[in-house]
């Protein structure tokens, strides 16, 4: 018989009695923020996700407190206190989750949102051994800049890099645009330190990548979404900085042409391809409607962004021109533009990053993040389109062509109160489709609260037996079930 997590938190104690003890544990100014009826909205940046979809608006009467520890010892104190009083803990990085992993589910029950933002120190950057050891609250962009300053390259890059934190990236197994070239979080994470719910430190720090000494405990934290403990420090592998970079946006007539372009990129540019992103024309229309961005792309069904990071003597410019020549003559692309400067490259990346922002401007929106074989991309989009067209829904797709990660988004210009009703047009259809196609319902966004009930359908996840084992693992780390309850695994 499976050991179940014990029932959560009974009896519930009101938040107010915890504020004074917590303030004495976290004495620095501004470390404990509590709801105040005279100042509603103050906690909203921490109680609601940035898209306004998950969590809740702080009305000044909720029961969630926001804690901002300044050091690992304070994280330990907070978790010891939470364990003693059986208070739910929601670890929070940059609060950029797209699936509600980092915000409390309800304002009713007392909960502690633990923000890691003050733990942002870089401990060490070793050029020879090529690693960066830092605290979990460091912002991804700052780590990229630190590596860049030393002539090295940080492996991770994603749309929210200006605000997301590296601890959150680890806990959500974030993917991003350079996944195909520089690898996953797991393949770049050398070590980490975590505080367990008991307050104990689990020291998994290492600066080396190779070890066959048993299963990798640190890998358990990758994608754990704050359900096992709080990651306080991480150590990441760094890569050599590219000697030259180039970026082109290809106008591609079809997905099979996109597949040909990918093959050509592999054969003409060697290993220099760092990003291979795709956008359909529908999402570019959406971007141009919503945002004052000039679109560089000549019209086409699909647009493929190819970025090269060349380390070889032959420059990225030569490679991208060879790719352009081959793609244009062989029909893989009909047209395209080359970024002639870093400014133009940033503008093209800006359009790519604006896809999610443009979708977010709609009152009713559905965001899916699937791993799917390329042959299934048009099918799922077409079927979804057929289901929502009657209600005026628009289906747009973009994603990471290189790793078969499609971001399927559906928007409605409808009253936001219809979100749940309109969901019925798409769900469970999309999830069943992905399960049947052997894909993943979360390629890089995580499970959060959105997909917690569907973890057993993910290809490679071990089905119900796999989820049961995950529950046992969670119980081993978090026997009281205080860590981010309801995220990743549903509360039983």
């Amino acid at each position, binding site marked *: 018989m499976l050991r179940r997590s014990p029932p959560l938190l009974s009896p519930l104690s009101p938040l107010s009695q915890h504020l004074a003890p917590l303030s004495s544990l976290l004495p620095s100014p501004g470390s404990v923020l509590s709801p105040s009826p005279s100042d509603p909205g103050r906690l909203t940046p921490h109680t609601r996700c940035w898209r306004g979809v998950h969590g809740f608006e702080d009305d000044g009467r909720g029961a969630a407190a926001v804690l901002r520890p300044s050091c690992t010892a304070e994280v330990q104190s907070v978790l010891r206190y939470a364990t003693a009083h059986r208070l739910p803990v929601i670890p929070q990085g940059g609060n950029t989750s797209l699936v509600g992993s980092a915000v409390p589910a309800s304002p009713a029950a007392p909960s502690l949102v633990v923000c890691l933002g003050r733990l942002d120190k870089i401990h060490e950057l070793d050029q020879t051994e090529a690693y960066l050891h830092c605290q979990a609250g460091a912002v991804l962009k700052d780590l990229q800049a630190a590596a860049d300053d030393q002539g090295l390259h940080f492996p991770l890059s994603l749309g929210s890099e200006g605000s997301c934190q590296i601890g959150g990236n680890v806990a959500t197994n974030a993917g991003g645009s350079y996944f195909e070239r520089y690898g996953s979080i797991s393949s770049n994470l050398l070590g980490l330190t975590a505080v367990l719910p008991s307050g104990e430190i689990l020291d998994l720090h290492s600066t080396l990548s190779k070890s066959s000494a048993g299963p990798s405990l640190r890998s358990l934290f990758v994608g754990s979404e704050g359900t096992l403990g709080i990651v306080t420090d991480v150590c990441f592998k760094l890569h050599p900085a590219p000697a*030259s970079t180039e970026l*082109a946006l290809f106008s591609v007539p079809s997905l099979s042409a996109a597949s040909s372009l990918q093959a050509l990129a592999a054969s003409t540019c060697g290993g220099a391809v760092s990003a291979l992103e795709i956008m359909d024309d529908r999402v570019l229309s959406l971007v141009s409607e919503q945002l004052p961005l000039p679109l560089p792309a000549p019209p086409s069904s699909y647009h493929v962004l190819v970025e090269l990071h060349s380390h070889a003597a032959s420059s990225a410019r030569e490679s991208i021109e060879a790719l*352009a020549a081959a793609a*244009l003559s062989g029909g893989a692309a009909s047209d395209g533009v*080359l970024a*002639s400067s870093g400014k133009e490259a940033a503008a093209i990346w800006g359009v790519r990053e604006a896809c999610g922002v443009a979708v977010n401007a709609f009152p009713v929106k559905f965001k899916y993040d699937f791993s799917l074989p390329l042959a299934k991309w048009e099918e799922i989009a077409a079927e979804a389109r057929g289901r929502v067209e009657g209600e005026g829904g628009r289906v747009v797709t973009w994603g990471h062509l290189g790793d078969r990660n499609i971001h399927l988004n559906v928007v409605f210009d409808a009253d936001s109160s219809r979100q749940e009703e309109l969901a019925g047009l798409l769900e469970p259809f999309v999830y069943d489709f992905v399960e049947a196609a052997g894909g993943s319902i979360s390629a890089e966004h995580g499970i959060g609260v959105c997909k917690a009930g569907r973890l057993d359908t993910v290809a490679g996840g071990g089905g119900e037996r796999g989820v049961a084992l995950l529950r046992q693992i969670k119980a081993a780390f978090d026997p009281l079930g205080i860590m981010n309850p309801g995220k990743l695994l549903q509360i039983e």
Partner: protein
Amino acid sequence: MSRVMVGVKRVVDYAVKVRVASDKKAVDLANVKMSMNPFCEIAVEEAVRLKEAKKASEIIAVSIGPKQAQETLRTALAMGCDRAIHITTDLRTDQELGPKGVAKLLAAVAEKESPDVVIVGKQAIDGDMGCTGSMLAAYMDVPQCTFAAKIDLDAKTVERETDAGTEVVSFPSLPAVFTADLRLNEPRYATLPNIMKAKKKKMDTIAAADLVADLTDGNTVLEVFEPAPRAAGVLVDDVDALVDKLKNEAAVI
């Protein structure tokens, strides 16, 4: 129809964070991304628009620098210039070869090519000198219209940027030198098919020494250094603390 000559300079890319070389005599250029000077992009775009509006018959792009300057010229050709002239020099174009030398070289090319319209960027983002266009007009002994935000060849007027706003000036005749300011236009992207076609366009190479004997201007860079870093800010607890600090520490309210 006019014949147009455009100057294009290869500079450290706008998006690159520059570093001072270890000898403190220059900016480090090793493995640094280089691109066309943004104001030169605007100059090229203006020339191409003149041709598209059938006001120009031919556009000649000219760049001065090492072999890699040809890459920048290829970009100009892909944007729509007809042919290119590469003036080769081993001098560093960000500090060893100054505006005076560049103006002499461009004037020497202009003497051969007799352009009606010469457009250059108002300044390069490396040396930030901002006087090449004016010096060139002086050497060519033609009118100059600087900081152009709008060029009207038919009306012979130029709207130019000033500290106070804009003003419209008229110029007596062509040939004339125009320097491009930020608002003149929004440069286009070089399309991939045009990049392919640009490979077939003509590019002549001339050694700088064959055009101008003396390229010096008497300037020497003594030291290159970074500005002092800004001190970190402090977080205040609440509005009262902020007001207190503004009043008592900063004494600004």
